[in-house]
């Protein structure tokens, strides 16, 4: 009898939450912190916007290590959260496992592809956004030398770097692009000292615009740019406000939109599984213009619009590093 009761409880409790269908959105963040001023924070901003509009609380979790990711996603699902946004490519394997256990829960993964019937995979054409800011950097550079500081040396960041270089070369084929990666471990996302040093070394070699795609490390890059009177380009979120006057622009990746849209779609019942790729055309990536950099970018706006149009209509083909792990110009 007891056993039977137990199995009834176990058997019913999981779907019971889902069936109750009270709307409980959730986010499991990427390793690192929610307040990284870029990627995670973008997702968090999207969630905040959603909460402000709909007054629906979003459950959030910041995992400490790889094994906690799977645990967190499962825990969220068990508690009846739906949909669950899984942030970052490092969660793909965990999500693959958990999504099978909870076929009635909707999952959205950002920056990776998980092929399951209840998973929506959102990826971005970072190369297009990077191309744009690369072009802008080359235009703004007086020395004809621009820099790139990456975080962890992984394919995704090389994709940023590759797009950036293509963009810079498109504007000025003689441009010199310095590239540095901060390191090869996760710590590279959180090493502003090293970021600052890398930026300074590029400045010393003549660069006067630097693009950082390096999470928390970028803060050090922008600081160094400010201290040395150079220009910097932010990444993921709009970071123009961080060092006004120094920030030329930010290559925005609208993860906030992705998060917001996921929740909104679920609420409206229009959430769909499958692959979503967000590029310039879908306004998934772009470059940020706001009150902090309006004046600085004024001269280049027309040219930028032209390039944007060309990318969208396919006149400019931006090579994606990750298709073949090389950066073809």
């Amino acid at each position, binding site marked *: 009898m007891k056993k039977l009761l137990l199995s009834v409880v176990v058997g019913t409790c999981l779907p019971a939450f889902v069936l109750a269908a009270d709307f409980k959105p959730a986010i499991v963040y990427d390793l690192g912190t929610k307040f990284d001023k870029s990627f995670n924070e973008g997702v968090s901003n999207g969630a905040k916007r959603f909460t402000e509009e709909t007054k629906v609380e979003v459950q959030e979790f910041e995992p400490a290590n790889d094994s906690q990711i799977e645990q967190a996603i499962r825990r969220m699902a068990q508690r009846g959260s739906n949909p669950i946004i899984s942030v970052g490519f490092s969660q793909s394997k965990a999500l693959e496992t958990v999504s099978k256990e909870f076929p009635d829960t909707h999952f959205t993964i950002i920056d990776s592809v998980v092929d399951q019937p209840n998973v929506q995979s959102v990826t971005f054409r970072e190369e297009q956004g990077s191309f744009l800011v690369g072009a802008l950097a080359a235009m703004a550079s007086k020395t004809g030398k621009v820099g790139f500081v990456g975080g962890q040396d992984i394919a995704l960041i090389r994709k940023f770097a590759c797009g950036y270089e293509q963009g810079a070369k498109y504007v000025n084929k003689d441009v010199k692009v310095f590239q540095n990666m901060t390191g090869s471990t996760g710590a590279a996302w959180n090493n502003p000292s090293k970021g600052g*040093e890398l930026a300074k070394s590029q400045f010393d070699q003549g660069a006067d615009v630097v693009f950082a795609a390096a999470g928390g490390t970028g803060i050090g890059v922008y600081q160094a740019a400010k201290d040395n009177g150079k220009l910097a380009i932010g990444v993921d979120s709009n970071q123009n406000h961080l060092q006004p006057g120094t920030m030329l622009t930010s290559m925005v990746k609208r993860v906030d939109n992705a998060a917001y849209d996921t929740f909104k779609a679920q609420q409206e019942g229009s959430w769909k599984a499958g692959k979503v790729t967000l590029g310039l055309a879908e306004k998934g990536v772009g470059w940020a213009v706001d009150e902090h950099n309006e004046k600085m970018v004024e001269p280049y706006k027309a040219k930028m619009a032209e390039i944007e149009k060309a990318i969208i209509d396919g006149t400019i083909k931006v090579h994606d590093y990750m298709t073949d792990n090389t950066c073809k110009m």
Partner: protein
Amino acid sequence: MSEWFTLLISTLDATLRVSTPLLFAGLAGLYSERAGVVDIGLEGKMLVGAFAAAAIAHLTGVVWLGLIAAIIVSVLFSLLHGFASITHRGNQVVSGVAINILASGLTMVLGLAWFHQGGSTPSLTNNERFTAIQLPFAESMQTVPYIGPLYSDMLSGHNILVYLAFALVPLTWWVFYRTRFGLRLRAVGENPKAVDTAGISVATLRYQAVIIAGVLCGFAGAYLSTAQNAQFIRDMTAGQGFMALAALIFANWRPWPVLFACLLFGFLDAVAVRLQGVSLPHIGTVPVQLIESLPYILTVILLAGFLGKSRPPKADGIPYVKER
């Protein structure tokens, strides 16, 4: 002027910046270990110092108060180390490990609770930081060939803590070899019993040494968060405390060699930054990881006795037990 020279100047310029925290921490370790107290906890003390400096500088808007806070907090951790290893004769390595772990956790827990920014402190404005100061005549010297750039680009234009760190080296030498305190400090690390029978308190001397170490680690931490950077970030010491320890061993526990070891390690770091992805003639591309590991590899080789003899203070790491 050749491109090479410019590159050299910029590398050396970076070397000074990168060496500074190593130098503070290395000298901190020097005081502590020459007095016979092993200090694995340099890393942790730097970290709490960095946190305190950034937090207080942000809250008060005065960078000097941040520095003082860094020193106070770092000294408190030093005293904890002293309490464990001097008063209670605990294992000094274990105590150091505890301090490192504690520092890493505590800065995050408190940072998160106080600032709600994922453990980071808010960014500091330039008024809340130590910023570059130009040495006299830096402008006018600029044009003098070779000497000019050396002076204006490399030596000038650092913040005050950099100059302080380098000034501490001769000062430390003077303290060690020209003062009563230094004589006693060196003696207590070699033969504490001799010091005790000479009527000097071993515990007091060692406490003084670890307090100085705490002060210097406070400087190192403040440099990281309020001079080199403009905020505190999780685990921002990134192993520099251990690098300083390596430098200290490499220097055979002596003041001037500590300077050279820190400069060497700093130089390696500066070179690594510039060498990334560059293909060298005859060698090809050197993996950055290799260059980054060089200080550690060098230290291990030195410890193995292939680069001369490593001679730590005789009583280093041994608690002083008076009664039999």
